């Protein structure tokens, strides 16, 4: 889902960069001292996840895990994703430096949105509610990112519906896998370190 350089027009790039700066600013403000290591670890998870390709269905796509980042970090997902994307850009040549802002917004905004949608359900005592919430969070974050990418490409003259169709179809397996993965992580954290989920809730 990384958009390459030389595709988007300058206004789209500028808007993306401005929004990314704003989001990162909020993220850094909301991030307190004790949370920095957690942000860094999840940033590395995001950084490495994109190397895991899933050869499922008609296509080959990679893990994104922005839903998980959003759920555990809230607004702090912005700086985490920005740093990871920057490093992916310079080390792997995924995406590019000029598209960094747009790519950050495309992945981090759905993460934050899903955080607000599902933060209450994952701290609930009702087991079923936790599972459904975590699954939807992982599932939706990727899907929304796909829609955001389609939206950014809208201004390049590509048909929004066609692009959205392509992206969502290709990422359907990933959406399901990320949903399951998020459930697994949330269940695991609930058993081992439940305060991590609750802290995420309280500080933001």
């Amino acid at each position: 889902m990384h958009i390459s350089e030389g595709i988007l027009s300058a206004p789209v790039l500028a808007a993306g960069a401005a929004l990314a700066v704003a989001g990162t600013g909020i993220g850094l403000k909301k991030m307190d001292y004790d949370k920095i290591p957690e942000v860094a670890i999840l940033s590395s998870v995001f950084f490495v996840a994109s190397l895991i390709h899933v050869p499922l269905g008609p296509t080959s796509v990679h893990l994104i895990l922005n839903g998980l980042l959003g759920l555990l970090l809230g607004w702090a997902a912005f700086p985490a994703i920005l740093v990871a994307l920057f490093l992916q850009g310079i080390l792997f040549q995924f995406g590019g430096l000029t598209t960094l802002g747009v790519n950050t917004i495309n992945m981090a905004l759905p993460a934050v949105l899903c955080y607000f949608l599902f933060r209450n359900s994952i701290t609930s005592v009702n087991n079923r509610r936790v599972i459904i919430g975590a699954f939807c969070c992982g599932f939706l974050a990727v899907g929304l990112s796909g829609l955001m990418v389609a939206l950014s490409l809208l201004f390049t003259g590509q048909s929004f519906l066609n692009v959205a169709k392509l992206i969502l179809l290709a990422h359907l397996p990933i959406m399901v896998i990320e949903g399951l993965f998020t459930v697994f992580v949330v269940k695991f954290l609930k058993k081992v370190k439940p305060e991590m989920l609750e802290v995420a809730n309280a500080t933001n």
Partner: protein
Amino acid sequence: MLRTSLLITSIIIAIFISIFCFCETSFAHKVTIFAYVEAGKVYTESYYVDGTKCKNSEVEVYNKDGQKVLTGKTDEKGEFNFVPPCEGPLKIVLNASMGHRAETVVSKQDLAEGNAAPKTQPETRAKNVASGRHTYTSPEKKEMSITRHELEKVLNETLDKKLHPIMKLLAESRQHGVSAKDVFAGLGYIFGIMGIGIYLKDIKKQGKNRENDK
């Protein structure tokens, strides 16, 4: 709260499903196009970073003034070959679906070299035979220049043949852009940034503590 989030979720999922329809394409997050000239033709191969070939992707060729001179589509093997319509340098741009783009340049020199040898092949061979007999009686200077010319042609011919598989191999190996070194470097950077972050926040914290002490 659960009901509202479930409602929103189902609405969004409904939107997704309504958008769906079956199409076959392949994509990852980086594309590479690799081009080389041989026997008067430009060969290009396109890949996604995980090695999948870019099928049915649009390829555009621009001349040095930035004018589009040729468009085409890659085949099932991600390959697209064309006879250069004009002199180099040519810029070849690959437009894969959903925001993936790569470009490569075939320089004037590459184009000229790749063109020259094979096009004159049959001609040269005939000359070879003719001049082969001729050289014995020629003055030394002329013999030198002719043999060098011949040698160049023959070498080019053989090299093209021998290099073809190597060029293909090179094209295939170039796509594996991600190495373990890069991954560890990235992780190192992230934890370095974490260290700086903690340090900065720590300074702030200590400053506040000092103010509180006063």
